[in-house]
């Protein structure tokens, strides 16, 4: 599968495309280069964690066309994808960075669909560092992981567009790229092969 990364140029985004996960990316462009990029040449487009929404909003129409032509857009955490992808309802939350300092502390993140192929690659410990928010998902979306209220933190939407949106509030590229939080590296060690191997382009 061919994967295009959208690289916003922050240290952790550069690290994402040039470091440990470089072999997964066939190309990387800056958000401002999307307009002159043929997205249809790629099976998936990954928008890395913490890409500012103001840099993605101008490209919402082109991304929608790409989706409707059968493409996959992966929107990582802290990207405010609700501002540039269709059908996304995001609710931010106050981030508890310290839950693990409490004896028996539990962030409350759970795998919602253990039989899903992704969870042959990663386990519950690998989706647990902290949360920035959760989603209301459209009818028919496949929820893969939830927060303690049972709201989605990682889901696949193949109903809103002609393609596929993989949406998460988790921000592993940020922390991995900052050399922080081993769980985020474990997550990406499973997530990137999943994106790379399990998704082929949908028929338009």
């Amino acid at each position, binding site marked *: 599968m061919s994967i295009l990364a959208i*690289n*916003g*140029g*922050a240290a*952790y985004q550069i690290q994402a495309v040039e470091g440990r996960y470089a072999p997964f990316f066939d190309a990387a462009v800056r958000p401002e280069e999307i307009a002159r990029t043929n997205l249809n040449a790629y099976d998936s487009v990954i928008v890395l964690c913490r890409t500012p929404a103001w840099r993605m909003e101008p490209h919402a129409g082109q991304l929608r066309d790409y989706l409707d032509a059968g493409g996959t857009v992966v929107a990582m955490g802290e990207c405010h994808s609700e501002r540039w992808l269709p059908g996304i309802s995001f609710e931010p939350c106050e981030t508890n960075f310290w839950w693990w300092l409490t004896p028996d502390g539990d962030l409350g993140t759970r795998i919602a669909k253990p039989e899903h192929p992704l969870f042959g690659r990663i386990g519950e410990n690998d989706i647990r560092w902290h949360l920035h928010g959760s989603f209301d998902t459209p009818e028919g979306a496949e929820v893969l992981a939830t927060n303690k209220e049972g709201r989605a933190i990682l889901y696949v939407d193949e109903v809103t567009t002609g393609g596929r949106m993989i949406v998460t509030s988790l921000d592993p590229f940020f922390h991995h790229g900052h050399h*922080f939080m081993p769980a985020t590296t474990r997550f990406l060690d499973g997530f990137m092969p999943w994106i790379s191997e399990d998704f082929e382009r949908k028929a338009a």
Partner: protein
Amino acid sequence: MNHRHVIFIVSTDAPIPPQFDEMQSEGRVHPVRQDRVTPEIIAGAAGLIATASVDQIDLLEKRDAIERFLDAGGRMVINGHAMRPYVRELQPFVPLTTPHRPDYVLTRLANHPVFAGIPAQTLETNRGVAGFYGRGHNPPPAGATALTGIGPERLPVDWVWQRPGGGALFVHSGNDLWGVGDDPAVKRSIAERLVDWCLAGSHAEVCT
């Protein structure tokens, strides 16, 4: 032109941090979204503040403007991990390899107004957890002064460099410096002092 202000480069969806609110209302700090930071805006400022999330590919494209600003005596505060030489002498960040708690111990190596009266140890942890301050270092150029060392080797996690061609850099190789430690007053004070340091540069003095 009034050069007695500092440009805070806004690189994410988040607004300028609250530690800068008062200075913004006083006009000493101007937050500018990164795509709107033009060579003219750079030339018109006494200082630039880049966060750990700054778009370094964009800054590299603006290197000529940044270096002209420094040549004229401008001062720049840099947070985070250097990945691109948007000031020619910046070297790529060197992460600590498999760090453990002692590798995060901070040692003050030289006095600097930004850190006056703030022991390095008070910035070493957030809620008792180390690793927020820095997880490696941006190697300083020859002639720089190391301010804070990290780990037993006292690697230069913070340094200042009076650039031979003019201007100066204050580099903190970690999370944004006004966000480390647990004391809100210290965080505010660090933000104010970074701005004061920028405004004390010759660019600010000459051009007002």
